[in-house]
């Protein structure tokens, strides 16, 4: 270990602001990079499940259900935004 106190680690001989700012920005961006696909996968799984239930409930003709699906897609993505 190079530093001998927490204060020295934070200060880094006056360079602390630069070093910690750089690391903080990096950690934030990397966290987002990992979190975004996980959230996307979760949201899409819920969409597939909801779609499955819709299909099971309605026995409508193909074109009608396709239209409904688009509508459901829209409302779903809207609600998922507020969820996130």
């Amino acid at each position, binding site marked *: 270990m190079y530093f001998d106190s927490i204060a020295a680690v934070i200060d880094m001989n006056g360079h602390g602001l630069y070093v910690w700012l750089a690391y903080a920005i990096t950690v934030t961006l*990397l966290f987002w990079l*990992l979190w975004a696909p996980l959230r996307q996968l979760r949201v899409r799984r819920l969409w597939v499940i909801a779609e499955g239930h819709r299909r099971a409930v309605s026995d409508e003709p193909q074109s009608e259900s396709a239209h409904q699906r688009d509508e459901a897609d829209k409302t779903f993505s809207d609600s998922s935004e507020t969820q996130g």
Partner: protein
Amino acid sequence: MWSFIHKLGSPPWFFRFGGSLVRWLLPLTLILLLVGAFWGLLVAPPDFRQGNSYRIIYIHVPAAVVALAGYYVMALAGAISLIWRIKMADIAMKAAAPVGAVLTGIALVTGAIWGKPTWGTWWVWDARITSMLILFFLYLGVVALFEAYENKAAAAKACAVLSLVGTVNIPIIYKSVDWWYSLHQPASIKFTGESAIDASMLYPLLLMIVAFYGLFAVTVVMNMRAELIWHHRQSAWVRQWAGLD
């Protein structure tokens, strides 16, 4: 070997394979990142001239190295997509672009933060920094182009051409500090001959570079899995994955 490559093109197989890859590679990468950051920030000695500000090297250099290598991955996927029309290559290209953009962004921002105490300026329009900024825009261009097209095949074609044209920038970035007078210093890690960086500072740097490669692989595969699910949301294997049927 060939059967493995063939299987990679199969969406359900890739989805499962990618899932198990992420399960062990993600924890391993996070551990490497933590160890590397701890080592670089707290254990490694300061630089004789720059003091502690040089510790930014442990994120700046790995981010830049992997951003460059990642561009080749994206361009290669683009070439495969153009020549063989393999859907999985389109998906890989689309998955790599945002990761590369973020890594290039990290390299630029940390470089600016490092530049202030060492050079005395946040930004200078020298060859290395400017060509790196162009790389950032190339990545963003591919991301934007994928969104701009309704037709997925047309989007993939346009993105593939853009990424192939952009490959010329990569050797320029590498060699910019040797070809032109720049403020940015030449590379410290040398593949031939002795590196210009002391071993006590080099080892954590190499560790961080490996960790960032792992991070690139993990995030690209995770993006690809999310993309695959959406492409095949009507197929039986996705419904099965979601717990239906």
